């Protein structure tokens, strides 16, 4: 039990970060993480110690997030992206040529599936197989979502990127 809680605790910062990236709202993100932790601790018996705990936690988080999204859409909640945008407090190190606010908007326009996959791989450094487990999809699906997400982002942020050399494959 103690061991389990320690391991869960080690994942909390990653869960919060991912939740923030998904929801773009720090409070909502933390609520989501809290629900996720509660559910994980309640269903601890369902977790197989051999499997990666982190992927399992992300899977719970994603399920909660998707449910919330579904409910919000059914209710017709509509939150303008700009008001939710979490701008980093400190200007980050030069991130190449991609303007962050533009990237932020571009990510917001991605299909849900692609956004979930891309952020999970890029932010959390989960192995592809862990990410596929967390997203509850086969590896091949993960790779194609990743590919489509990157292509879409490139297109959406292309104007600020370096002069176009070639088309996306």
């Amino acid at each position, binding site marked *: *039990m103690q061991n389990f*809680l320690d391991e*869960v*605790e080690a994942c*909390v*910062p990653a869960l*919060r*970060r991912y939740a*923030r*990236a998904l929801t773009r709202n720090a409070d909502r993100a*933390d609520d989501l*993480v*809290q629900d996720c*932790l*509660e559910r994980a*601790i*309640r269903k601890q018996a369902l977790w197989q110690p051999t499997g990666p705990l982190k992927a399992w936690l992300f899977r719970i988080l994603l399920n909660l997030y998707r449910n919330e999204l579904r409910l919000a859409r059914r209710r017709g909640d509509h939150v303008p992206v700009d008001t939710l945008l*979490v701008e*980093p407090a400190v200007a*980050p*190190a030069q*991130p*190449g*040529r*991609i303007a*962050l606010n533009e*990237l*932020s908007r571009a*990510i917001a326009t991605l299909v849900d599936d692609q956004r979930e996959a*891309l*952020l999970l*791989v*890029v*932010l959390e*450094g989960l*192995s*592809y197989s862990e990410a596929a487990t967390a997203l509850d999809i086969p590896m091949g699906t993960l*790779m194609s979502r*990743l*590919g489509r997400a*990157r292509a879409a*982002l*490139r297109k959406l*942020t292309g104007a600020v*990127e370096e002069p176009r*050399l*070639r088309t*996306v*494959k």
Partner: protein
Amino acid sequence: MTNAKFEINADALHAYVDGQLGEAERTLLDAYLAAHPDAAADVASWDRQNQAINALFPPLNAEATPEALSPRRIARGVRTARTQLWRSVAAALIVIAAAGSLGWYMRGVFWTEEPASDRLIDEAVTAHALYVKEQTHAVEAAADSPNLMRWLSNRIATPIDAPDLTAQGFTFVGGRLLPGDYDGKDPSPAAQLMYQNASAERVTLYITAALPDKKDVWQFESRNGLDAYYWANDVVTCTIVSDLPETDVRGLGKTIFEQLTRHADSSWNPKT
């Protein structure tokens, strides 16, 4: 992405960008990218995306985790909630059990079964009203029929003699056998004895064997304009029905009681 048969394809390029490759594979790809500017441009673009995304959503490691997100605290909450759940379940079971027992206990209050005395009084009054109007067939067997009382005694399984009410001015007319249903289940027999005085006023006695509880009961009721005086003890139940004044009926009751039960005067103890 550390497959035995490593193939350089789009997936491999993604894996390269995402740092999912082993040393050997990365070296292979480095060489490939050096020779393929298109792929190298893809990889560079994705790498910039990765950096930008990481910059957009910086890690929270430095940020203190709120207490609400402490797994230990949440685990305590879950345990408490579980305990409370079990307590609520236990409490609910106790309430259900208590309500059930109370309901069973109170069933007599809400679903009162009609007392045996009420049923017998009803039947005695009904029979009285029915037969006192008869002139020629008021009784099934007249007072002078041989074995009348032995027959009725046998049928109600209790030896009875027709009480002598001549002192009160009543003569015995005769009797008949009637159903005597005291519990709504098996009708048992009852004997009706009829008396008449000089002014043709009639009194009937409706007699059954003692009830299973053999309790002493006295009950005086007026129904449908008739007075019914019911009493029961460990020998018989008897309902005296007539339209005489109440005092007369009560007076008759004592004489009949003494004669029917052969009990001493002292056990005549009506509360009503």
